[in-house]
């Protein structure tokens, strides 16, 4: 089954998306954020909390910020402190945490020594990340990469230990990817909670300890089921790059990470999000972490047929931002979703068309396909039928990452049996219709072809407009998800700052160099 797309139109779309993001990247390059600086602290080895429970990466960055030194970059202050106090970054941070001193109050040390320290800390961080990455790449190769579409399920009990139990059961049943959903509104926290947690709402807190616990559980069961099992979490919200950092350290395989989701759906400041996503994606690109973009969200609040082109537009923008962060396409989990009202006549044809469009536009990516959610109801049987067709569209159109729909979507986060039923439905359909997509052709100039072409054309028109007014203004206009956000609005705006002349961040620079995107 092949979609015939106008090749020129595709090129034009990509070019426009590039131009749109080029403009934004200029803003990004001039700035950093509190979270980017905390990311550096974390990768330099700072972890733990102070006696009041504040995470030490926050403590040191806040210390420098209050002291007015953040424009120079936290890397400098940590290196300077380490040299002065002859401590490692963790020791230094603990001392700051105990309020023994402030980093900005430490007299500037020999510049050569400080530079050397920064480079040394950066190199160590890089090495750590590489170690984890290489270990995972090796495991993936040894255990074997499961067949696509990967079966992706969520666990969301709020308690990491219950999550582990349920994740293990899901893996036994056939899950290839486990996503631990975060607790409601964690994205609005300007810090990452610490330690193993057992009390979340609608999900489990993303903490480094929780990552480790789940990673170990999955690594324990993977050899037993004879396939590599991927772990997913969320690099969204006010701690976007930091989460990427701890994910890199704990060997996660995927992160939900979108260049605009936080702006639109969490009312996070635009500049903050754009700057954060860049660092966040550098880390992902470097760590071989697949990102999952969030276009499914747009058609949760706007019409999935009429606004289909906003999904395409956002996908192209996400792709360009990922390219700017040096990401190999195979780590781009370009998002889309099966969200059309089940009562729409020929809704199935629209879904096939849209899903094929994503697949065809991004041939080297690993698209992430999301299930029906907004038109799921308390009728769990009906929901199970909707998920059956969703599974069919996925296997027909050759999707890569397949997030399973739950029959209880409208009711609660998944019960252990809901997940089982979802997995067995997907396995049934994937096997039963394995080669269906390659055994049929689309009618020439038929509905499916025309619909895809139309969506693409609309995306191009929209991109033209966005290019004209600029991405930020377009967001103000309510282009995506029918939501409007103003440039100066939103949470976390006070955490964005323009880098000083003397700003240094050798860690990020080294990653840029290694990824070939040194700017």
């Amino acid at each position: 089954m092949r979609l015939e797309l106008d090749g020129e139109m595709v090129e034009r779309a990509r070019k426009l998306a590039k131009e749109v993001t080029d403009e934004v990247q200029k803003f990004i390059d001039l700035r950093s954020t509190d979270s980017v600086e905390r990311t550096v602290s974390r990768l330099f080895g700072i972890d733990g909390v102070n006696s009041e429970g504040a995470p030490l990466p926050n403590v040191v960055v806040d210390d420098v910020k209050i002291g007015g030194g953040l424009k120079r970059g936290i890397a400098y202050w940590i290196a300077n402190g380490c040299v002065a106090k002859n401590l490692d970054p963790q020791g230094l941070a603990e001392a700051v945490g105990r309020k023994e001193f402030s980093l900005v109050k430490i007299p500037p040390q020999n510049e050569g020594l400080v530079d050397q320290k920064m480079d040394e800390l950066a190199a160590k961080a890089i090495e750590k990340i590489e170690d984890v990455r290489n270990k995972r790449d090796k495991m993936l190769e040894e255990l074997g990469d499961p067949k696509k579409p990967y079966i992706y399920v969520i666990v969301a009990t709020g308690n990491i230990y219950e999550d582990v139990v349920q994740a293990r059961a899901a893996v036994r049943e056939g899950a290839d990817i486990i996503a631990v959903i975060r607790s409601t509104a964690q994205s609005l926290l300007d810090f990452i909670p610490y330690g193993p947690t057992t009390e979340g709402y609608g999900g489990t807190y993303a903490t480094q300890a929780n990552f480790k616990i789940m990673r170990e559980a999955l690594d324990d069961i993977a050899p037993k089921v004879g396939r590599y099992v991927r772990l997913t979490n969320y690099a969204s919200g006010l701690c976007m790059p930091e989460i990427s950092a701890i994910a890199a350290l704990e060997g996660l395989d995927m992160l939900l990470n979108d260049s605009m989701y936080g702006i639109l759906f969490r009312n996070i400041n635009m500049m903050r999000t754009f700057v954060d996503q860049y660092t966040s994606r550098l880390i992902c690109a470097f760590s071989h972490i697949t990102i999952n973009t969030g276009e499914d969200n747009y058609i949760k609040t706007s019409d999935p047929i009429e606004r289909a082109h906003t999904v395409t537009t956002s996908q192209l923008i996400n792709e360009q931002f990922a390219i700017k962060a040096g990401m190999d396409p195979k780590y781009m989990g370009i998002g889309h979703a099966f969200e059309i009202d089940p009562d729409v006549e020929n809704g199935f044809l629209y879904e096939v068309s849209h899903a094929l469009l994503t697949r065809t536009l991004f041939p080297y990516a690993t698209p992430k396909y999301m299930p029906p959610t907004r038109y799921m109801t308390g009728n769990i049987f009906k929901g199970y039928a909707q998920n059956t067709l969703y599974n069919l569209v996925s296997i027909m159109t050759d999707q890569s990452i397949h997030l399973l729909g739950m029959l209880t979507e409208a009711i609660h986060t998944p019960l252990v049996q809901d997940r089982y039923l979802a997995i067995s439905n997907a396995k049934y359909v994937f096997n039963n219709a394995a080669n269906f997509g390659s055994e049929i052709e689309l009618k020439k100039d038929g509905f499916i072809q025309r619909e895809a072409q139309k969506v693409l054309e609309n995306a191009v028109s929209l991109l033209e407009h966005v290019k004209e007014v600029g991405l930020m203004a377009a967001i103000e206009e309510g282009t995506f998800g029918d939501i409007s956000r103003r440039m100066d609005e939103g949470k976390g705006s006070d955490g964005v700052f323009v880098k000083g002349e003397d700003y240094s961040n050798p860690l990020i620079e080294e990653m840029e160099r290694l990824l070939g995107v040194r700017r």
Partner: protein
Amino acid sequence: MINNLDLEHLRPYGDQLNDGVIQLSFTLPVPAGAKAREAAKRLIESMNFSDVQIVHSEDIGEDFTFFVVYAKTTRDVNYKEIKTLEVEVPKMGMEEINEKVFKYLKRQIVIVGATIGSDAHTVGLDSILNMKGYHGDSGLERYRAFKVYNLGSQVPPIELVKKAREYNADVILVSQVVTQRDIHIKQLTELADILDAEKLRDRVLLVVGGPRITHELAVELGYDAGFGSGTMPSEVASYIVEKMVKIS
């Protein structure tokens, strides 16, 4: 209704009148097998079920067993004596509502709406408030009789109360969608407590909505009304007017 129905002893209808058939499914955290099946059977039997048929039991990994069961309830319910707590209001048209408000109150009714606490689901509240409305039924903003302030999502209760005071609100509409671990109960209670503490409770009509909200629950939490899944804006409009006119 079908013949021979004994409404004082209403029972489920599967294949025959009064057969009482109910379908169940659940998971026990023990390995699949005869012993698990027997445990499932005993459990269901201990719950006023007879003729328990374990029609499916399956290992779903890690020593969990999933069951599908058909059984017959031994109970019935007196349908005749049921008085529902449902909000029952005469449904009025938009113009009727507008006129009524201006006739009796001689001013607009001020409404403040928000999804509170950690809840970011706005689609439900927006369906009630936005012009566009829900399934072709216009939202409250479209009524001349209402002045609507939609504060959006994740509004802390204290903030909502501040705004209500600022706008001199007659009605507070809150939405709660996430219910896991009863977070909605906590957040709704917090709002009600603040209103009480600030001596505002008696001066506003306090209404909550969401897919898992029932009127019964709302009343229990000290709210005036609760609206569940599938609520139409016009129902809410009618309710508000009915109440406001009565109060005045």
